[in-house]
């Protein structure tokens, strides 16, 4: 993946840069909005990481300018402002996802991969069947089968599995699940998500030789064949 990081804080920038480079990404860095905008318009990237507060041109203006010139590169906004209205403002400006500082690197990476993947798959024709190895989900008939055998899921388990299937092969963090499946942007104190995952796992993996739903230590979960 080729990623542009627009971030003025040197520590944060090198933290992101090192992490992404280790994860096999090709990373460019701009320390202010003007340089960032220049790089983003002249080079081609799989995704941008844009800090909201930047010297000169601020992050939201950078995104708005890009969107106004029909640049659709997915953007992940980084911000110290984490309230709902800040998030809404960021997404309205044209951001695709919003991550509040401080963040765990695994969270950033998972979200970036999800964004880049979504962009690559293009304007996905509304899929009616989602698949992972021998697991199949029919969205129209609301049915799930593995090796042809039907699996009975609760509505929320169905949503959870749908989210995982849409991010198949990628790490999905607990916060991403809470946002994507429950539409909550706060952290419940106890990790209730884990319990939901373990229930789902027992339904789709139990009795099958090859597990599909994996736990990624210190990051989240991954559905993979």
């Amino acid at each position, binding site marked *: 993946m080729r990623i542009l990081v627009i971030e003025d804080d040197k520590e944060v920038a090198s933290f992101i840069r090192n992490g992404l480079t280790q994860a096999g990404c090709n990373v460019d860095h701009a320390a202010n909005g003007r340089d960032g905008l220049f790089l983003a318009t002249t080079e081609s990237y799989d995704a941008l990481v844009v800090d909201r507060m930047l010297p000169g041109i601020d992050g939201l203006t950078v995104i708005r300018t890009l969107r106004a010139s029909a640049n659709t590169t997915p953007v992940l906004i980084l911000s110290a402002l*984490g309230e*709902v209205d800040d998030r809404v403002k960021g997404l309205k400006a044209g951001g695709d996802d919003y991550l509040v500082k401080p963040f765990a690197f695994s969270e950033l990476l998972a979200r970036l991969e999800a964004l880049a993947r979504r962009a690559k798959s293009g304007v996905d024709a509304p899929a009616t069947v989602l698949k992972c190895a021998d697991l199949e989900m029919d969205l129209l008939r609301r049915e799930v089968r593995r090796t042809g055998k039907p699996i009975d899921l609760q509505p929320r388990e169905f949503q959870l599995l749908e989210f995982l299937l849409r991010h198949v092969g990628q790490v999905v963090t607990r916060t991403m699940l809470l946002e994507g499946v429950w539409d909550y942007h706060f952290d*419940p*104190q*106890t990790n*209730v998500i884990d*319990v*939901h995952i373990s*229930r789902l796992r027992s339904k789709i993996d139990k009795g099958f030789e090859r597990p599909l739903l994996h736990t990624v230590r*210190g990051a989240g979960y991954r559905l993979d064949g």
Partner: protein
Amino acid sequence: MRLPRLFRTNVFRLTLAYMALFALSVGALSAFVYSATLGYLDTQTNAIIQAEINGLYEQYERSSLGGLRDVIEERIARDGEGRSYYLLADPIGRRVAGNVQAWPIGIDDARGQWVDFVESESGTPVRAMPLRIGPGFRLLVGRDIRELTAIRQLLRSVSLYGITLTLALALVGGVLLALSAERRLAEINRTTRQIMAGDLTRRAPLKGSDDEHDELAQNINAMLDQIENLLAGMRHVGDSVAHDLRGPITRLRNRLETVAGAETPSREDLAECVVQLDQVLATFNALLRIARVESGAYRSAFTTVDLKPIVRDVCELYQAAAEEQHVVLHGSAPESVEVYGDRELLAQVLTNLVDNAVKYTPPGGTVRIELARAGDRALLRVYDSGPGIPAEDRSRVLQRFTRLDRARSQPGNGLGLALVNAVTLQHHGRLTLGDNAPGLVVTLELPALSPPRVLAAAPAS
């Protein structure tokens, strides 16, 4: 140049405007009295003269100039007060009869119009009517109008005095009013300046008159109380942050120092540091959120929220976790109850309550969420069958960082209920902790919006 302060006050300007209005009214009234009174007297005088002329003319027609002269002489003799004036003059202006010495200069005899002149001998103002009579003779009949003139003078000066007096009174009144308003406001201004200078305990004085100034002072005082409370709250947060974050941060520092000094730092040690730091951050974020809630930052985004789906969602979110702990969790929300608020905050509140309930309920226990409407209140209750909270600790647990002794073994930062309390207050609600014998029942009471009225189906036309 700036006007003196007093003259810039609003009260003073208003008084000036009223003063002008009053002066105008008094002027108009005087003008009316003046014209009505003088008009009446004028008409009377004129009528008397007219009658005399008529009589004299009759006499002239009856007995010619000689008879007219006799009648004039006779009338003069009879008029004891000397208020009537007559003059019969020959064609070259010489007096034939009458008590006016000569035909007054500038009086045209032909027109039969009213004229005013001053009789040269006595200096008396006279109203008269000239008349052509016979072959070139002229007759002038007049009457003393000293009284009329005097009354006119009087009316004029009365009007003038009246207007002047009104203006003077209004000016004095305006100054007095402005002074008293200024004095009250000056007290309030002095208080606010003292507060700005840092003395937050000052309050605007009340006069007890219950007027608008008292109301202003009361509102200002209420505002100051609120500010003082908020400041105290902030100070408390500051103290709490210092107290509660210093511990973990110090431990983290020590651990990092150990790791840094070790020959071969272990991965586990570093991972443990990250975990500890995450806890510090979580506490910090929770504090920030409470502070934001208390500052009313979410109020602007309040909208109509139905509590029913929130109960359903949170119940469903915790179902699996509860079963894992062998706790039965059920939610009951038979009807939609709408409140004015923030969906996310209300969901977090219920999450915190259910989280606590599930955490402290022993295996085999039950947690129940109930949503009901009681009149214009929404009642959200969470029952558990855990150990409960002793009555004397109940108000304490709503404070930040309060953790009862037996809770210290459980994960948590002691901010859950504090957030619930803050959110409840921002929604104008009430949070009460009660005894579920055994266990705890938390009641969240919020002002409910009136249920949508079921409209009768419109008759088909």
